[in-house]
């Protein structure tokens, strides 16, 4: 059966250009970049030119790029790294994080809290955008780091990173301090948005290859010169001792290639996906009763559509769609390992019975208008079937 993939926010297939760029480094040029002889020097040169490529895209210096094993590691390194390095400078060291971060950020914050750090949570409004006024109140002289994601993985909302950076800069200036630092998780954003570090005004930024048609478990942490971090992985001192372990040479090459292509094509691809996405939303709202869209419509990734469909449960919805060849995802409690409803949907104020019927559709490179038509048709049928089974009938406004 033909498959229709609508979960590009979960992960993306690797592009053939990326695969091709990596090819040489599995068997032929397999050297360890730390070795002094020719094989080692070739590998070293390859990762350094990848680093230069990435730095050029971010408009940073190459030495500000640390290759990591994926996005989660990068976020961990940013949060734990700064927290641990600067802890001694503060009486009540504090970290501010938004309530809609990826678990990579939220769980790290929880772990830091257990270690004795203070953690403050920045709320979002109903549309998913962070509350800037609250941020101003939360930042104080004990704050080491503010971490707010660039674009949300569930509802696709784009946070006003430059505005947040300005608030932080104003605070630093007023109090004559270098703190707090500002980290952003840009894993979902890198495929569609501008990621120049200076323009954004961030000190640290996390990227992930597996979301931009690159290899899984590859990524970087951008760390502005002058900001220090304590490593979380100890060993042979690779990546200037910030991330020990023999470098994933093919992965690094693949990541750099994927990022370069994604950034080159972002405007055109964004436009194409946005019009497909808007077409999808329009069709779904028109053909299926009792449905609404979550997250701000304007400040939003071009490939994300996120629905609440009343009177159906998300896991059942996803499994039925799967039978139609469709891959999509949900934030329903029944779907999660802990039976907890999506924290993002809770943060935007959705009641649990609405979170139950959530469906995330994310488009990508291979999505066509035909696919969207197929999806709308199948969704209509599946929702009808599940509603027939349901003993309840919720009202749209709660």
């Amino acid at each position, binding site marked *: 059966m033909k498959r229709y993939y609508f979960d590009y926010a979960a992960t993306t297939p690797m592009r053939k250009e990326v695969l091709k760029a990596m090819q040489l480094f599995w068997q032929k040029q397999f050297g360890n970049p730390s070795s002094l002889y020719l094989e080692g020097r070739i590998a070293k040169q390859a990762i350094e030119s990848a680093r230069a490529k990435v730095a050029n895209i971010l408009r940073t210096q190459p030495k500000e790029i640390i290759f990591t094993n994926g996005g989660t590691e990068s976020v961990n390194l940013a949060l734990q790294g700064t927290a641990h390095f600067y802890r001694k400078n503060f009486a009540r060291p504090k970290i501010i994080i938004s309530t809609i971060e990826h678990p990579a950020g939220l769980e790290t914050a929880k772990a830091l809290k257990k270690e004795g750090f203070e953690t403050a949570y920045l709320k979002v409004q109903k549309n998913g955008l962070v509350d800037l006024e609250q941020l101003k109140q939360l930042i104080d002289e004990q704050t080491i780091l503010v971490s707010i994601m660039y674009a949300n993985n569930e509802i696709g909302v784009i946070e006003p990173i430059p505005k947040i950076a300005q608030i932080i800069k104003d605070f630093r200036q007023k109090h004559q301090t270098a703190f707090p630092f500002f980290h952003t998780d840009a894993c979902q954003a890198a495929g569609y948005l501008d990621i120049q570090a200076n323009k954004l005004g961030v000190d640290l930024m996390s990227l992930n290859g597996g979301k931009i048609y690159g290899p899984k478990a590859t990524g970087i942490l951008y760390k502005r010169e002058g900001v220090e971090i304590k490593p979380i992985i100890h060993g042979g001192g690779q990546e200037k001792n910030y991330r020990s372990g023999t470098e994933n040479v093919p992965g690094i090459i693949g990541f750099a290639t994927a990022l370069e292509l994604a950034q080159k094509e972002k405007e055109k691809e964004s436009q194409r996906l946005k019009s497909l996405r808007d077409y999808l939303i329009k069709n779904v709202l028109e053909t299926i009763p009792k449905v609404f869209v979550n997250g701000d419509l304007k400040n939003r990734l071009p490939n994300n559509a996120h629905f609440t469909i009343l*009177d*159906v*449960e998300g*896991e*059942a919805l996803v*499994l*039925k769609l799967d*039978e139609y060849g469709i891959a999509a995802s949900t934030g*329903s*409690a*029944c*779907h999660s*390992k802990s*039976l907890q*409803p999506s924290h993002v949907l809770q943060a935007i104020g959705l009641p*649990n*019975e609405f979170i*139950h019927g959530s469906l995330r559709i994310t488009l990508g490179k291979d999505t066509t208008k035909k696919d969207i038509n197929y999806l709308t048709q199948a969704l209509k049928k599946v929702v009808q079937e599940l509603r*027939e*089974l*349901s*003993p*309840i009938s919720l009202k749209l406004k709660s």
Partner: protein
Amino acid sequence: MKKTSTQKTNKKKKEADVLTKGNPWVYSETVKDHFLHPRNFMKAGEEEKFQYNGVGMIGSPVCGDVMKFWILVDPKTEKIKDARWRTFGCASAIASTSVLSEMILRNGGMTLEKARKITPNDIIKELGGLPDIKYHCSVLGDKALRDAINDYYRRTGQYDKIEPEGSRVIDKVLKITEKDIEKAVLDGARTLEEVQEKTKVGLGDPTCIPLVEELIRFYREKYNL
């Protein structure tokens, strides 16, 4: 030339092996079957026509799902002659209600006395197993059914036979009820031994121990303990 083509098919075969090895579906085949082809559910518009003399509904404390059961009982034999259900919930919630409706209608219908004793484990067994975390989905089915049975007794004036949920006696010798077990769990008991320390359940009637263990699990899930 020939060699290359067989090599190619070999390669294809190998790839397919890796991809299809084992059954990659999330639940058992029976769950899948009942989820995709639910039996005996109340179709749209059928409510007005369907004859019943007992109806029950229950909501899940864990994730907010809802189940409803309609039964038609033969007053002479007190066997369930027909049944319908509706479920708002995940795939295993749908499948466990569907399979339960089959269990009670089998062989000319189950007596109310027997139907009332169906436990979540009976349903899970029938389904060919459920992931641990989905245990509570099948707890809903038997509860909704018992609610419908109570409703039948109420409608037929047999008030002495009504067993409100929670007052169900678990240990018949010591007269320990579901509520007692719930209270023990809320008071901090987490294992069978700890619940026994507080309630002595099972000391009078050891046959109820598996059910007690099920209940401990259910209440721990319910209250996130």
